[in-house]
Each structure stands twice: as structure tokens, then as C-alpha cells.
């Protein structure tokens, strides 16, 4: 036989073999197919392999590779068919309406999901993610942020202290200063993380909760950029028809300061649109020059804006959760409602 015809024969063994494997109705029939093709002594493929030494050396590799490939394919098919005789006897081919067999569902916590979505949007807008410690000093939490300790503003977030000057951060804003200390402008970051306050548990308060901080510092950043960026975020998060409102407010580390409100427009299935109530979703503002100066930058050259929001509250609104404490109970029936 020529080598070409040997290769053709191998291909034929392959096609016929696979068909025979498929048609084998029991383990005995399958074993006969195996012996016919792969039996050590008389198996057809084995014979080809054994005859390789008689083939001319320049054609041997090609033929050998093909023979081995066919052997692998057929062995795999036999092994699979063999398993099918032992497994899944329970398949009732007559009733495919029977329930399927999915694995357990898992999921990411709804508040993390909110953080993730917020982060994704800001990353699309050129922001990177930064971190800072949860236990920090009064300097980073208050004074560096232009909040004198004897000002009532320092009281607004009743703070948990570890020692005289070390506290559990009452907001993620300390990350602003920590980032500015280590990097030069342009800075464009968000900082998601836990914050702590001396609040008792109720439907809208917990003594620790997630916050997402944001900070932009560069030359030529103005109130217009501030409004544009946060309005863009709000529309991407809450929907393109969302109205965004900026109201004057006060934070010691921003000036001018603003509360950002959104009014969602929900389109129902029947096509009708419903305007929702205004929701307060963010505290924000232009970074106070005193903060920029504390970071060691020139406030005459650099300007910027900062913002902070609570993904827990946002998740409550988004999913219609009526009590913030649900997020801490972690009942799997609750978590299961947010499975990915």
C-alpha cells in the first residue's frame, strides 16, 4: 500500500470507528469496537502504528502523527461512550419538562454591586481607584480638610475615637489628602471604602457604611467641569432622562459646596413615563484652596472638585429596600434576590 492510501485508510477507520462507537448499544458491543480498532495484537489502528518501521523514513513522521491522532480521537470517543453507560441512567428521555440541574447560585452583595456600578462609570470617565486606611488621625479626617476640631462641622459626623488623636474615619475624604501627598496633578480618583460614625442602628443609619469619595485636581478645573462630570455620572447611573440639580450647601473642605439631587424619570412597560421625587444623592463642591494648600500644591495654579456618596443609600433606592439594616443581616434569602 502507498502512504497516501494508508492515510486514507486511517481516515476511514476514524469515520467508521466513530459511527460504530455511537451505535454500540451496550458495553459488550463497545468493547468489540475497541478490540477491532485498538486491540494490541490485531487492532486495525495498532497495526498501522506497528507497521511504521517499514515506511520510508521521510514519510514516517506524517503518517505516525496521523495514526496517533486517530488513535486519540477514537479512544476518547470510546471512553465517553463507556461513561454514558454508567452515568445519567436517570435521564428520562420521554419528559424534558422535568426541572434542570443548575449549580448553587451565588452573588455579590447589593451594596458592592452599587459600588461596582459607580466605579465602572467613573472609570469610563477617566477616574482610577484609590485607597486609604480606615483608622486614621484627626489631621487627615478633619484638620487637613479645613475642619477645625472646635467647629460644629467636626461634630456633624459624630466620630468614633480609638485614642486621643486616632479615630475611625468618619468619611472617605481622608483619602483625598493621602492621595495628593503621594501623587502630582492631574489627579482623578474615586475612593470607595468603609466609614464609621457614632450612629445607632435604625432604618436609615448604621454605625459603619460604605462611601465613595471622588477627587479631581488639575489646572483649569472649574465649577463648570464639576457640574458637567457629576451630571454625566448621574445620567449614566440613574438613566438618560434623569434631571440633575445642584443646591448650595456647606462642607468645610469644599467651596463652593453643593448637594446634588436627581429626579428620575421611569418609563413603565406600557410606555408611560413617571417623574419621581427629587433625591439627595451626593455632597460635593470645588476643593477648598486651604485643602489644596495643605496638600502642598499651589492653590493659585490648581483647582479641583470633590464629591462623596453613599452606595448603601443608593442601593436602597435602586432596589426598593426599606431598611438599611437588611444589608447587614445577610439573610441568604435576601442576598439571593440580588444574585448575579
Amino acid at each position, binding site marked *: 500500500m502507498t502512504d497516501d492510501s494508508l492515510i486514507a485508510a486511517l481516515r476511514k477507520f476514524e469515520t467508521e470507528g466513530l459511527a460504530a462507537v455511537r451505535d454500540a448499544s451496550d458495553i459488550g458491543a463497545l468493547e468489540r469496537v475497541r478490540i477491532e480498532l485498538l486491540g494490541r495484537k490485531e487492532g486495525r489502528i495498532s497495526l498501522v502504528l506497528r507497521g511504521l518501521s517499514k515506511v520510508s523514513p521521510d514519510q514516517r513522521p506524517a503518517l505516525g502523527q496521523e495514526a*496517533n491522532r486517530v488513535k486519540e480521537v477514537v479512544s476518547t470517543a470510546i471512553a465517553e461512550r463507556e461513561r454514558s453507560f454508567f452515568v445519567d441512567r*436517570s435521564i428520562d428521555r420521554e419528559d424534558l419538562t422535568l426541572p434542570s440541574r443548575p449549580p448553587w447560585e451565588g452573588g*455579590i452583595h447589593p451594596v458592592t454591586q452599587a459600588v*461596582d456600578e459607580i466605579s465602572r462609570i467613573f472609570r469610563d470617565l477617566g477616574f482610577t481607584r484609590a485607597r486609604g486606611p480606615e483608622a486614621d488621625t484627626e489631621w487627615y479626617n478633619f484638620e487637613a480638610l479645613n475642619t477645625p476640631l472646635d467647629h460644629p462641622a467636626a461634630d456633624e459626623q459624630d466620630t468614633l475615637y*480609638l485614642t486621643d488623636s486616632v479615630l475611625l474615619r468618619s468619611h472617605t475624604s481622608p483619602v483625598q489628602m493621602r492621595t495628593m501627598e503621594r501623587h502630582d496633578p492631574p489627579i482623578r480618583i474615586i475612593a470607595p471604602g468603609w466609614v464609621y460614625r457614632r450612629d445607632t442602628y435604625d432604618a436609615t443609619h448604621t454605625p459603619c457604611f460604605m462611601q465613595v469619595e471622588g477627587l479631581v485636581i488639575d489646572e483649569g478645573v*472649574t*465649577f463648570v467641569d464639576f457640574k458637567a462630570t457629576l451630571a454625566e455620572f448621574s445620567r449614566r447611573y440613574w438613566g438618560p432622562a434623569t434631571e440633575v440639580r445642584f443646591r448650595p450647601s*456647606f462642607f468645610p473642605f469644599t467651596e*463652593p459646596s453643593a448637594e446634588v439631587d436627581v429626579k428620575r424619570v421611569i418609563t413603565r412597560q406600557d410606555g408611560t413615563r413617571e417623574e419621581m421625587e427629587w433625591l439627595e444623592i451626593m455632597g460635593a463642591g470645588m476643593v477648598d484652596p486651604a485643602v489644596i494648600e495643605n496638600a502642598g500644591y499651589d492653590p493659585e495654579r490648581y483647582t479641583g472638585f470633590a464629591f462623596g456618596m453613599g452606595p448603601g443609600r443608593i442601593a436602597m433606592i435602586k432596589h426598593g429596600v426599606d431598611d438599611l439594616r437588611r444589608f447587614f443581616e445577610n439573610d441568604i434569602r435576601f442576598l439571593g434576590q440580588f444574585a448575579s
Partner: protein
Amino acid sequence: MNVSYRWLLDCVPGLQLTPEEVGRHLALRGAPLEGMISPGQGLEDVVVGRVVSAEKHPNADRLTLCEVDGGNGVVSVVCGAPNVLEGAWYPFAPVGAVLPGDLKLEEVKIRGEISHGMLCSAKELGLGHDQGGIYQIHGEFTPGQSFVDAIGLDDVTMDVEITTNRGDLLSHLGVARELASAGKGTVTIPEFPDDPHVSLSFERHTQEARVGNVGIRIEAPDLCNRYLGVVIRGVFVGESPEWLQQRLRGAGARPINNVVDATNYVMLELGQPLHAFDLNRLEGTSVVVRRAQEDENGFTTLDDETRALSADMLMICDAEKPVAIGGVMGGLESEVSDDTVDVLLEAALFNPGSIRATSKILGLSTDASYRFERGVDPEGIERAVSRATALIVAITGGVIDGPVLDCCPAGFEADVVSLRLSRIEHVLGVSFTSAEVQSLLKPLGFELVDDKEGVLDLRVPGFRSYDVTREIDLIEEVARTHGYDKFPAEMRPYRPSTVPDHPMFELEDELRGALAGRGLFEAQTPAFVPESEGDVQVANPLTTTEPFVRRAILPSLLRIVEHNFAHGNRDVRLFEIGTSFRKAGKGEPPHEETHLAVVMTGRREPPHWSRQDEFITVWDLKALLEAAAHISYAGAAEVTVEPGVVHPFREELAFVVANVEGHSMGHGGLVSSAEMDVPVWAGDVWGFEIMLPSDPPRSAAPTHVPLPIFPAIERDLALVVPIGNSAAELDGLIRDCGGTLLESLELFDLYLDLEKDGGVRSLAFRLRFRAEDRTLKDKEVDRSVDLILRRLKEELNVEPRR
């Protein structure tokens, strides 16, 4: 701040806005409405009734039988109060009326007489304390007219949220000023009836003033910038006139007596806290403003609480002892009472920081301290003292005795702040002309001092002297009064951040995705724990039961499993990524690590009709632990077993995650029943916790290995292994002997024989041999297997099963 809508209308005559509209305007100025209530809410059914006749109840000495005209004919009413007067007007609740507390009035028979309704006391109406019986109202009324209208309760109390920088808005005048500056009218200070139009003279000194036998001395000039005292003699203390009570109620305050009401009225109107002392209870009829002395310990404030004083608190004292905590609360002993004849009226400017510190230490926040902390108008104090004096004279019949004693160690000098038009544009992104800026700032009280070359010098009014001290403060005023909504909001190009994305976020994302994908739910639990679970203590904890922050996450997750068990959830698989706190050096912030904890219990897979339930075992835990360690450390940490755990009867299985240096990065195993409450029906609870690297390795891109082209040869080895030898030892040795030809090694069977030789295990391995470059010969494989068997025998005393 509670603002009375009617009072506001008095201050801005002609204001054409509803309370809701006022709220919207204030919100756009930075002072949103938190809520609105009507002080007459719940009293809609109460009418004004006139007592036509009153006589003793025939069958009860203490009751009165009255004939009351409530507009719907005269009815008889039994009244329990002793002060019913014929011909007087009272709030009357007829049959069918509903009073606060859902009390519905019905016809009742009292000692044989039918009562068709009720004459009400102030307390029953929620309007104040009972002052010896039912609530007589004075004036001309029509029987049956609405009580709410009659006494001016048809007001709206607006709860306005004032940010901490705007102390100037803590008065009706301040709110009125803000509305007026928005072009909504002009501010005026309203007239009050019978204003005697007094004109006061001032006896001005720096630290000590004395007229006749009354003196004032400031011994702590650093804590008190100014102290004014007016003596008013011969006052008649009693109820305030109805109009004054109405204003106070409208602003959410309770009338007390005319002297105190006058001070409260002026505080709510002008923002200056005032205090009235009973002059004759001040030892030496003098006032000394000084710090508390060490021996002055307990001081009883007028709420009848004894307060512990500390040395830095500013006290108002008489010649001997403290009589008030300056700027916070007066003392019980010197307060104005019904017997008071002579009054010393105080108006002062205290140091905001000192008041805040005192209020914080005492845990006592009052209307006065709240205002002083936020800054009281230094230019408004004389007007306030004049107005309060006039009011007290008008409503108490008292007379002013001598000039105002005025001690002023630190006079007020207004700031002049420069504002560059170029800087406005630099910050706000929109340019403003000098004229535009002036028209925005002038209505707020800023006066132009100079204007040249694009720089405006502006004089800051006293009431804004606390929050406007810098150029940026004026820029905010420009933005605020111009209106935030008028600024454009178009996206402009930006430069990319120099800050790299923190690698921890990527690691956390990857772990969350992997674990959720394997059927676990992410949990979030609070960081506060009992002492047994933490190293780092909170100095001012919220609860005494959880005064620490945690060093590990797993115990918190076990509490969550208990919660789920308690609700009948048997299949619980949770993970959490959180912070662990450990003690660092003294005075330093604690050491923080990010940890991952996992807990699993119940079935491996959801129940299905096609098979028996299987439960989560140690092998599931180990797989997950290996996956987590691999994701976190990319091969730089491995899961090993605590020494000595190869034992079929050992109950506690424990894994260690160790890095290359052998340091433990975490641990896992069966959760001991001592750690948590496990109901009898629940399965084993498995858990682990690992520390995540603070600077996670970025995993290298995998390099492609060409798929094999030569066939493999498989051999199965069934080995008899004495108990005490671990699978890992065998695995290591076989791989070592197999060298590069051994492509894979898989344990496919395990059999335990406890009878034989004190217990043996039989482990069956499948070995797959392959050469990269040629077809392996059986002989080569035989040699390898022989070597493996020989070394197994020699080194581990392991032989093939026969």
C-alpha cells in the same frame, strides 16, 4: 431652625410666596426645608366657647357645672377645674370633637349631670403646661369660631435646615434677609403693640462697668468679647400677651412667662441669645464673667439638673458663686420667677469655640449655645438689647434703671476682603463683571469699599464675619446668588489621572467574581465586636457589648450563619472581604489588613430529583481555599496541612495557608461547635480566613505549551500506605522519581482497611507518562515505575497492593 411663616411675613411685608415657595427659594440658597407643620394641627375640632354661667356641681364639691355657648346653642358642661369664670372665653371641644391622642369626645354623665363636651387646658391641647386649670383666652371672639384661628395657631412652622457655617440664618431676620436678597421683598423689623420706643444710653468700658450698686466685670476677656447688662426694675411677671405667645408657638417654642418670652422672642427674631437674671438673687447685685474655679463643682441649671463644672468653662457669677453657664444655660437659683421684681438683662458675645467645648463636655445643647457656637452678629447686639428692653418694659410694666452697662474688651472691626474678577472665572469657569458681582453681593450686606483693576474690596457685615473671611468665601456667595443652575454643565476634555488604579481593588473584584461564581454570597457585616474578638478598642463605643473593632472576619460570618439557621436556612455559603485591625505602637493608628473569610454549610448542590443529596465536606473547603490562595498569591502561598492530621478519626481538620517563607497567611477547617450555635438538623460548618496581600502580585500572562503530538502511556499503582504517611508525601516522591516523563499523577481511589496491621490505607494512583519528542516505549515506562516502587519501599515503606 423653626421658622414661623407669619413671623416671616411680618419681617418681609408683602412677601408673595406660600410656605412651599419659601421652602423652594431657601433650598436654592442652601437652606432646604426639612418639614412643615402647623402648630394648630390636631386642634381643628376645637372652638372658642364662652361660659354663660358657672355654678357648683350639685353632687360634687370640686366640679363646676357650666353653661357654655359653643356657637351651636348653649350646652351644659361639667368642668373639673377651679378657675372657670362667667363670661370668659375658653377652648371648647364639643361632643364629636377629636383631640390630640385620638381622644374622641362623647356625651358623658358625671355625678348625675350630663356633660356635652369639654373645656380644655393647655396641656390637653398640647400647648404647654397646666397653669392651674383650663386655658382662658383673652380678647374678643365669636362663640363657635375656630380656636386655631382665634389664637393665631393658623401659622406654619417651617423646619429649615441651616448648615453649620450659617449662624446668621438662625433667626427670622436672617431668613428674611436671605429671601429679600433673592429679590423677594425688603426686610423690616416688625412693630409690636405698645412699643415704648426706648432710647438706651450706654456706659461703655473695656472690662468693668458699674452704675450705682450694680456692676459687671469681665475676668476672662479671651472668652467674652462683650457683655451688656440692663437693669429693669418693678417688673410684673406673668403671662405674655397673646400676640407674643402666638409668635413663639409659631416658631415651635413654648411660652413660659413674659420676661423669659421676651428674651426668647428677640433671640428668635434677631439671633442674639439673651438671659434675664433675678437681680436680687445676685449676691452683691453684680456679675463677674470668669472661668469656673476648681472648688466650684456642682451647678444646678434651670432645668433642675446638677452639672459638673470644669476649669475652662466660662461662668457668669455673682460676687460669690456661679449663676449661669455662660452662653449655655442659666442657673435655677437666679432664674426669673413669679416673685421677681428687678431683672438684669444680659446680652453678650461669647467665644464660639469655648461655648462648643462646654456644651460638648456637658452634653447640653441649648438654643443659646447652638447660636453662640455658630457665631452671633457682633454688630447686632445693641439693637437686640434695645429691642428686648423695650419689649420687657412694654409687657411687664417695668422701668429701665440707668444706662446699659457695657463691657467690651474686644471691639468688632469689620473685615475687608479682596475679590479678583479673574479668580472668579478661574474657579467658576464663567466670567462676571464688576457690576454683576456688586449686584449679587450688595443685597447680602457686602459693601463695596474699593473697585480697581478688576479687584473688588468688600466690607463683610458682622453677621457674616464668621464664614466670610477669604476670597473663596465671596466666590461662593457669587455662585450661590447667581444660582448654581445658571452655570453650564458641558463636558470638557480632561487629562488622565497620574494615580494608578490600586491593585487591591482588582484582586477583590477577582475574588468576588470567583466566589460568587462558585455559589457563594458576599456578606457585609459591621466591624464592631465584643472584647474577645478584637485587639483595638473604641474609646467612645456605641454599645458596651461591642466596644472593639475586629481582628478577624470569620466570627462575624458565623453570627450570620446563626441568623440564617434561626430562620431555617440550612444551605449557607458566604464570604466577606473586610478589614482586620491589630494594635500598633502607642498613639499610632492600628495595623490594618484586608482579610477574606468564607463559611459554608449544607448541601454541595441544590437538591435535585435525579440524585441523592451530598453535603459540603472538607474537600470542598480545601478546593475553595486553594482557589482563593491561588488568586490572591499567584503561587506565592500554598495550602498545607497542620502537622499530624493524617488520622481517620481526627475530628478537627485544619489547613494552613503559608507563603514561601513559611509565614501563615490564613487557616481553615471545621468550625468547632464551641464557636457557634448549631441546631441539630444543621450540617457541618466549614470556614476559612486568609489575609490578602497589601500589594498583590499582578499575575503573569500564561505562556503557551504546545499540545503533545506523541501518545501517552498510563499505569495504575495501588499502594498500601501505613497510616501516618500522607498522600502529599507519596505524591512528592512519585513526581520526583517520574521526572519529566511523568506528565500527570492522579489519585483515583482510596480504600481503608482498619483491620489489617493496625490500620492501612490503599491509595490508587494513575500515572500518565509521555515524552515530548518521541513515542515512549513500554520499557522506559517500566523502568520509571520500578524506580518509583523501589523508592517508595525504601523511603516510606510503601508497597503495591497484592
